[in-house]
């Protein structure tokens, strides 16, 4: 862990351009290794996804792509239930975004702008959710969801995913709203806005990028969740639940195709919110 640290000259400034070339070389070698560590498994699962049956059983394998085509992927998508599962994943994740923002952002606003009795209790409730393996709480919900007709629906899945995303959304939006000076709102009130108008005209435009990042995180949380989705669905499975179900009986190249489809949206989303990543997690992990 400390190789790069202990090798920096004691008297030198710890900046890259000040490092002697040998240490720089070492630093970049390490970094390239780390980048490869992250990217190579994704590359291989992509090869598996587009290589089809023959690709999977080729022996020995070459790390270079050969015989790739979209046909195996299309084949996978045409399997009965796959496209439906994909849609269910999108629906559940979309609903999770809507619910966690609609429920979490007002709470975040209240925490940011008001001091009120019960504030600490509320904060404790939100933080408490973090000490629990939340997805496991889907177990008893099976029964009640069957009773009220939410079992085996993307809507029902999105509810439990919102439990995962809501505390996150509340904390992140809290700090988002705290970053918008109260004076802006007060100025809007003085110049003729109601509270609601002031929120819409002044706070919302300023909070929008951060809210979008929060929404994307909520989406990713739901998109990736396996346990609760598998417990709460039978026919209307999400993609993760579907893949888990077929894991033991489906051929490898289908599994890789499914894994690849699971990875892609997340990678794009993380790219979209990379500017907010650290701000958001810095807050959410307090």
């Amino acid at each position, binding site marked *: 862990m400390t190789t790069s640290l202990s090798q920096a000259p004691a008297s030198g400034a710890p900046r890259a351009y000040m490092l002697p070339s040998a240490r720089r070389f070492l630093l970049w070698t390490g970094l390239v290794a780390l980048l490869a560590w992250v990217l190579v498994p994704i590359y291989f699962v992509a090869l598996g996804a587009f290589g089809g049956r023959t690709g999977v059983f080729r022996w020995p394998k070459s790390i270079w792509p050969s015989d790739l085509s979209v046909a195996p992927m299309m084949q996978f998508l045409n399997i009965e239930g796959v496209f439906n599962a994909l849609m269910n994943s999108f629906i559940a994740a979309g609903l999770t975004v809507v619910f966690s923002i609609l429920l979490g952002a007002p709470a975040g606003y209240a925490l940011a702008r008001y001091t009120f009795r019960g504030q600490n209790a509320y904060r404790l409730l939100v933080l408490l959710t973090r000490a629990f393996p939340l997805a496991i709480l889907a177990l008893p919900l099976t029964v009640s969801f069957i009773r009220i007709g939410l079992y085996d629906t993307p809507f029902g899945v999105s509810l439990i995913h919102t439990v995962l995303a809501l505390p996150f959304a509340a904390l992140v939006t809290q700090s988002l709203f705290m970053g918008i*000076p109260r*004076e*802006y709102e*007060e*100025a*809007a*009130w*003085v*110049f*003729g*806005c*109601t509270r609601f*108008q002031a929120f819409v005209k*002044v706070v919302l*435009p*300023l909070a929008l990028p951060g809210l979008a990042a929060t929404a994307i995180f909520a989406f990713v949380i739901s998109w990736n969740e396996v346990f609760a989705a598998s417990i709460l669905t039978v026919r209307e499975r999400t993609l993760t639940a579907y893949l888990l179900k077929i894991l033991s009986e489906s051929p490898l190249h289908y599994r890789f195709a499914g894994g690849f489809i699971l990875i892609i949206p997340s990678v794009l989303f993380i790219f979209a919110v990379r500017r907010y990543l650290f701000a958001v997690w810095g807050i959410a992990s307090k």
Partner: protein
Amino acid sequence: MADIVIDHVVKDFGTFQALQDVSLVVEDGEFVALLGPSGCGKTTLLRIIAGLETQTAGRVVIGGRDVSGLTPRKRGLAMVFQNYAVFPHMTVFENVAFGLRMQKASTADVKRKVERAAALLHIDSYLDRYPAKLSGGQRQRVAVARALAVEPAVLLMDEPLSNLDALLRLEMRTELKAVLREAGTTTIYVTHDQTEAMGLADRIAVMYGGKIEQIGSPLEIYATPATRFVGGFIGSPPMNFIKVRCEQGIVRIGNITLPCPAGCEDMELGLRGEDAMIAADGSGIPFDVRVVEPMGSHLLLTGSINGQLARIVAPPTATINAGERVALKADPSRLTWIDSNTGRAVGRA
């Protein structure tokens, strides 16, 4: 145009009393400064007038209308905030137009009024820029223009110049005075800077500890402070206070005697550094000089009178050295007498 009546306003924050029974009348078209150190309640009072804060007791009446329970937008006023609160996601034009748009003014009206306010504050050349591209002084102008554009009956300003650097502050002060005189708006201006208050205001309300200590014209407040606090807060250097005993209407300091108002024994003699003259004949209040600071326009002498700290202003050409003892004279009518027990001035009609 409107007058403002602040009627026995009290504000508690939990157990802390931010305002203790404050009353103040601001005439139509008058410019009143609320002046005091931080924590004196001046901003709280302003925010209560604006409706951003609700008083615990008392009323606020603007133009004969009791606005105590009304939200800010229904009070018909405009405000300039300490940090300007110029909306970053709107152009300068939209910022200045904000209040007019909320009043649903016609497009032509908005354009005309924005342009007039912008011209008044010399921001017409960057109306389509975003605030992020403006300097602090320019943002300040936008904030003032936004407030003036709605032609408010009442204008509230919360330390509007405190975030500017010294030179810009002086420039903006002069300009504000000219602009506001022309607009003729009833203005309440919160500041902790006495020169701002003295320079701008028709009247100053000096606040301390949640109370108004004194209301009066800048000259009155300077010349005849009503309390020890006002004397010490206004003026540079602050007024000197020398503990004396008043016996049978007479006070002795060194080898001179001064007549003092009757009524109490423990008094403090308030003497402005600028009012003291160095007596050529050596007879007067003895002053032991410890430090001499040449300030250009004057010499600032720090030393002691009867063992008590005092600061005296001397002409720049005077030849006085540290360690010297000089005698001071003062016009008795410019002396302030403070009752040590109450801290209030006594013996003044």
